[in-house]
């Protein structure tokens, strides 16, 4: 008997990042603030957030836009969003 050529039947579905399928907008400051440091307000890098290429780029662009438009504070995180659930694996 010859081995049949077929696709790997035990293939896992591709790993999805946290925002796969969610539309990123500069207006929802709460979502954007989850990827920002609470002490300095700096944006977390890809190794901390664990997002795919596209989503990380979209998030950075949206955060910068929110800074300029006057939706999100720059040097710190909005205190009302400090008790949000942790998405990024930050080690303080």
């Amino acid at each position, binding site marked *: 008997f010859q081995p049949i050529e077929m696709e790997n039947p035990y293939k896992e*579905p*591709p*790993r*999805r*990042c946290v925002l*796969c*399928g*969610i*539309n*990123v*907008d500069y*207006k929802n400051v709460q979502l954007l603030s989850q990827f920002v440091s609470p002490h300095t307000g700096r944006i977390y890098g890809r190794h901390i957030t664990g997002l*795919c290429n*596209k*989503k990380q780029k979209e998030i950075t662009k949206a955060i910068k*836009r929110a800074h*300029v*438009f*006057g*939706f*999100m*504070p*720059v*040097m710190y995180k*909005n205190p009302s969003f400090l008790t949000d659930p942790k998405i990024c694996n930050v080690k303080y």
Partner: protein
Amino acid sequence: KPETAAVLKRTVEALMERGAIVRNLENLGERSLPYKISKHKQRHRRGGYFLVDFEGPPSIVSTMMDHLGRDIDVIRRTFLKHPVSKTEECSGIIPVNYEDKLIAKK
């Protein structure tokens, strides 16, 4: 509150005057600004956010920025392209083959 209505009316009329079709006007609420903005010799702490959806020729952007810059009641003026939401086909993280990339870039 009638002042904000007057400001909005002025801006919308200015837009229509330059040949823009206003589609929608949204009020994103009034809240305290994330940082104090000083504009027109005044330090502002609270402001109202409005979003105007309009279609028009790109040449009116510079004239509108000029016009809104002279308006005392407008704290920050910004123009944005209409966002085309296109996130329906987000396939997961595709593992990148770094070996192949390195060899191919010779």
